[in-house]
């Protein structure tokens, strides 16, 4: 193996464990707007190369503010941000060239054509025209047929896709999607998820905000939760689901029980009020379940089980609990 290949392998390996050189590094970032609203308080966060990061939080939490600072639209009050090692203020050219942004609001011209606006974006970000790339991009987003249409004649969903095309026009390594699927129909939402996965597979780092928790659950590698300007949680999605997610196994009984048999006393069981169901709660904080033993003990105790079902808490439940608890 040549030296060159070796370095690439090391890079790939380290990026997978994510311990080396974050693609975005945010340190002690604070923002107080001119009118005195504090939108961010001392946020520190590393985004790993190649991951899909979901930023969650209620309205007004500071998600857009955070994104806008990284993209150079809002000036931070304190703290610093680096994009791939480039300070976003001192080395703004290098930093911004790496970043694409699809903002939360549908802000787009009216009169220019799709092709013109996408070419405009590419030029703005310092890239020479590349008709082949732009064509592929527009085809991928099903916009090619409408390339010569004036933007104002497009539907809302199409406009949103134009905004994505603009953000991707300069082939960014990092893509910010600020609520990409707000007000978007199911089909387009699926399309976008697919697009995001494709981009990730090509090595793009994606940071998205969303109010749809299923979206974060479906897409994200890691989740950060912001509330009132503070980062209150930062976790791998899987770990998060494992740690905070509670599972319940409900056993529907063939014959109602008067009480839980003594034989089953070792298991964390509760009997439902109508005495027709036994509920076994497990998971959360990583506690191991011993379902095999439970089932064996139930059989031995002669309890007749007619049916069973399991439920697990979603990211949504976790999120609601967190916000309710507050920072």
């Amino acid at each position, binding site marked *: 193996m040549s030296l060159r290949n070796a370095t690439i392998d090391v890079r790939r390996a380290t990026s997978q464990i994510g311990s080396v050189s974050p693609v975005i590094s945010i340190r002690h970032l604070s923002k107080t707007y001119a009118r005195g609203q504090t939108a961010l308080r001392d946020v520190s966060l590393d985004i790993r190369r190649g991951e899909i990061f979901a930023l969650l939080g209620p309205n007004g939490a500071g998600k857009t503010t955070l994104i806008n600072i990284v993209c150079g639209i809002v000036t931070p009050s304190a703290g610093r941000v680096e994009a791939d090692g480039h300070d976003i203020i001192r080395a703004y050219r290098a930093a*911004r060239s790496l970043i694409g942004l699809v903002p939360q609001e549908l802000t787009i011209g009216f*009169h220019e054509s799709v092709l013109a606006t996408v070419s405009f*974006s590419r030029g703005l970000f*310092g890239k020479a025209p590349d008709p082949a790339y732009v064509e592929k991009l527009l085809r991928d987003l099903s916009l090619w047929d409408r390339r010569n249409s004036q933007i104002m004649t497009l539907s809302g969903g199409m406009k949103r896709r134009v905004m994505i095309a603009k953000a991707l026009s300069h082939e960014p390594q990092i893509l910010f999607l600020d609520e990409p699927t707000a007000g978007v129909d199911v089909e387009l939402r699926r399309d976008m998820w697919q697009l995001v996965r494709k981009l990730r597979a090509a090595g793009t780092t994606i940071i998205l905000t969303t109010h749809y928790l299923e979206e974060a659950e479906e897409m994200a590698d890691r989740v950060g939760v912001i509330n009132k300007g503070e980062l209150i949680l930062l976790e791998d999605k899987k770990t998060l689901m494992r740690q905070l997610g509670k599972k319940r196994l409900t056993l529907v009984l063939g014959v109602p029980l008067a009480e839980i048999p003594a034989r089953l006393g070792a298991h964390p069981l509760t009997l439902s009020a109508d005495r027709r169901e036994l509920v076994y709660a497990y998971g959360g904080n990583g506690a191991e379940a011993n379902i095999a033993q439970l089932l064996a003990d139930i059989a031995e105790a002669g309890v007749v089980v007619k049916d069973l079902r399991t439920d697990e808490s979603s990211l949504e439940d976790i999120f609601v609990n967190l916000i309710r608890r507050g920072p």
Partner: protein
Amino acid sequence: MTAGLNLHAIRAIYTYEMARTARTLLQSIVSPVLSTSLYFVVFGSAIGSRISHVGGVSYGAFIVPGLIMLGLLTQSIANASFGIYFPRFVGTIYEVLSAPVSAVEIVTAYVGAAATKSVLLGLITLATATLFVSVHVLHPVWMIAFLVLTSITFSMFGFVIGIWADSFEKLQLIPLLIVTPLTFLGGSFYSINMLPPLWRGITLFNPVVYLISGFRWSFYGISDVNVAISLGMTLVFLSACLGLVVWIFKTGYRLKT
């Protein structure tokens, strides 16, 4: 990006702005042609029949440089202020702010496009004027120089207004309250030497006097004030506007929150 300058960005913004001009081409051309014709009908014929010559030039020909300047100033300010105010208003400015472009590039592109349009309109006005009176240009190079410098200066001034304004009313305010009166009182339609001494003294505080005087000199070789002073003053305004623009970008004034 070559030589540290994002030329692709300059070209992108410039082209975008010129395309905006092209979309409104008809009204861009019709309005100067129409207003020039009207001025000639009203001023040239009505007043010109009473004042036959100013400094050896027929009154109709005398007002041509002033008319061009009047259009140049109004158009430069209107174009440049709208060009930057509109993206701020609808929010599309986010893209420019998030792009790897410097203040120099942004100003070059926006002001360059507005100034280009003004110069074109100035030439259209001149062409229209030749339909009514015979105009000759004594110093064509200086004429173009004044045309271009004034367009750039007032486009830059318009750019500043477009950043300062936070409503469409304010966008109209300065042109309406300051620029139009200064232009009318700046000797567009008369020589300030025709004024009583007191008024002539006051008029010398009007910056537009120097622009019009210099511009008229490039046509007929006659001027109210020394040409060197006119040129100097034009450059002073240019520097002042440039300073204002630099300050805006240094402080992020009204562009970033």
